[in-house]
């Protein structure tokens, strides 16, 4: 029992990442009708926003301290980050410590702008072209973005720790009546899960409760009619592309403490996120979120030793098996709407 709860929790944080990327993919597909193969790269760039933020905050100047000597007898070099110099030692250290959450402040504008540029500069010209062309051009863009990041940051994973306050683990088992240390869950994963719930909630309430969101939903349902009513739907859809990029970026930025980012992390997530979108139902936002969490949790269950002893290797392929079963039995996906991408 405790193993199942633990795996559910483990699945939830991976599922959060899947759900956030799939949410962005679905937003783009639902509004613009474009299949964005570069969405994984956006997730990756978000992660590297966190790396950049950390490097930026750690920018230091060097002073020679004549009172102390290093082991060679030379005056000791003391590196002081500029932030500590400006804000005082304690505040500065705290800022550096919190660089990953702070990087959201960097990720949102960067990703919004990147999203706008991508949509206006490239994707816009592909609305009228076949889906295959859209896939190909965004695939090319993904390669380009990935290679640029590789050249700037190198090919190795870059460890980017969470604030020390969250470095430990929470003994969830003890809270709900299991023996101590039966279910131990790292704080940061819990935070990531809650954060993703927050982002998902924000996106949904934005679409649900604002006039802007209402217009966007109307546009998703019937673009032409909304245009005939004199509303510039293109501009709103561009903004939605930016928001989708920002969602992917935030998902990436907050994910770095869980897995050190490398330049191909986006591609690894992208393949699964596509599967998530298809399982959830192309164009269905709740479907994408539900399928993201569902597949994350199922993947975690499949890596239980008891399951693996029955079907060896199931943990590696469970997601694809589910996708194949869903597509063959319910081609529209779990929550897909009628008429979306049906040939």
């Amino acid at each position, binding site marked *: 029992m405790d193993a199942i709860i633990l795996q559910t929790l483990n699945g939830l944080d991976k599922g959060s990442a899947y759900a956030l990327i799939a949410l962005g993919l679905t937003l783009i597909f639902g509004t613009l009708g474009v299949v964005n193969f570069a969405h994984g790269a956006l997730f990756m760039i978000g992660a590297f926003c966190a790396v950049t933020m950390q490097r930026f905050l750690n920018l230091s100047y060097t002073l020679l301290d004549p009172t102390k000597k290093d082991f060679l007898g030379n005056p000791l070099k003391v590196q002081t980050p500029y932030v500590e110099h400006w804000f005082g030692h304690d505040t500065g250290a705290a800022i550096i410590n919190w660089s990953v959450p702070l990087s959201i402040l960097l990720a949102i504008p960067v990703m919004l702008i990147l999203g706008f540029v991508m949509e206006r500069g490239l994707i816009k010209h592909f609305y009228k072209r076949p889906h295959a062309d859209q896939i190909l051009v965004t695939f090319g863009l993904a390669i380009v973005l990935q290679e640029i990041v590789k050249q700037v940051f190198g090919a190795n994973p870059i460890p980017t720790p969470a604030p020390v306050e969250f470095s430990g683990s929470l003994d969830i088992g003890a809270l709900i009546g299991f023996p101590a240390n039966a279910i131990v869950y790292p704080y940061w994963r819990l935070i990531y899960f809650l954060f993703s719930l927050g982002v998902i909630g924000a996106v949904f309430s934005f679409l649900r409760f604002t006039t802007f969101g209402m217009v966007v939903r109307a546009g998703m349902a019937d673009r032409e009619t909304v245009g005939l009513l004199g509303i510039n739907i293109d501009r709103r859809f561009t903004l939605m592309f930016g928001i989708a990029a920002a969602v992917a970026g935030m998902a990436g930025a907050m994910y770095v403490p869980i897995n050190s980012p490398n330049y191909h992390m986006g591609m690894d997530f992208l*393949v699964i996120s596509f599967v998530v979108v298809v399982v959830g139902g192309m164009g269905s936002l709740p479907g994408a979120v539900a399928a993201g969490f569902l597949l994350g949790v199922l993947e975690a269950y499949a890596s239980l030793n008891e399951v693996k002893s029955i079907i060896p290797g199931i943990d*590696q392929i469970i997601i694809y098996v589910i996708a194949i079963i869903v597509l063959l039995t319910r081609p529209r996906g779990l929550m897909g709407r009628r008429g979306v991408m049906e040939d």
Partner: protein
Amino acid sequence: MLGLEKKDMRFLLIVLLLTLAAPILLNPFAENSAMAQFNAGYPDLMQRIAIFSIFAVGFNILFGLTGYLSFGHAAFLGVGSYAAMWMFKLLSMNILPAIGLSVVIAGVFALLIGYISLRRSGIYFSILTLAFAQMSFNMAYSVLTPLTNGETGLQLALDDPRVLDAANTSGSLPDTSLFGLAMNSTLKVEFLGRLFQFNVGYYVCGMISVVMFYIALRIFRSPFGMMLRAVKSNQHRMSYTGLNARPYTLAAFVISGMYAGLAGGLMAAMDPLAGAERMQWTASGEVVLMTILGGAGTMLGPVLGAGFIKYFENIFSKINDNVLHSWFAFLPHWIQDPLVWLFARFTGEGWHLTLGLLFMLVVIFLPGGLVEGGQRIGRLFRRKQGAGGDGPAHPPKPAPHVAE
């Protein structure tokens, strides 16, 4: 002849001649000269170009004719490699049974995957094939380790049974061969300071690729090929006329899977090693790149694309900072260093960046690939010729009909 029209026959003969003469044609620069690094006439590269041409030509039968974009073709390549390796390990180092088995196994595998994937079309089909390929890749890494040797990859070993071969007493690993003719044996000819290498493996790959090219040509010109084009242009209309498209698309899928399996088998035959990374989706992406870059739906396109990518991959990865510095040595330092820095982003390790940019440019501006680019240039010349009246000094070559 051979069931081809005159024009196609001429085209096939040109391809055959080019294939035969490639070791000479691709080596235009003298050894020891500064340009020698642009030579492509060595066996390893030519083998790869021939093998990837087969792969891309096969992929084009599916994508170019039916419009179904598969993102999982590398799975068949990998399966073919594994099958060939097992033949080398168990039966004989002769490449014929190995290649035969790799084609058959890849065909069966393609039949299974195609049967399921082709129930959907468009983006769903792409994602399904992608999912299948990723699944095979993950399985090759984990559960199927007894078959695939996991991360290390499948390799030859001294104590493999090889029931048909004579007992190996030399103490070194045997070479792959065709009835005793070793694949890695090379005839080296020095001529005018150029070193021409006539390699058995290359000629095997080259001849097989010409045969496969011929088969693809026949498919393109056949009623079956016409049917596949009909699927691409309008599947609904086809089913309204009472034709079921699925058997045709499935046949195309299986054929292109067998092409990929053959390429995989040849890869193992040239270099007896098979690893799971051959099945990864980046490998599937590569064949998509080749086909699109060359020109999907044309005969020549995939071959051009495969040759182009493999050649420049080879050249670009050799251009490092030192080479660049020697190129720009005539410039003052303050120009030279930034220039070298800029070029270094796109060469050497940065080759994939160049490839990605190039690919995007082709998809955006030249959806017909290099072949369309060539035709546009040809048309430009012809228009000038028409305006000029008497005809220019250099009459342009008429664009081959087959490369439409």
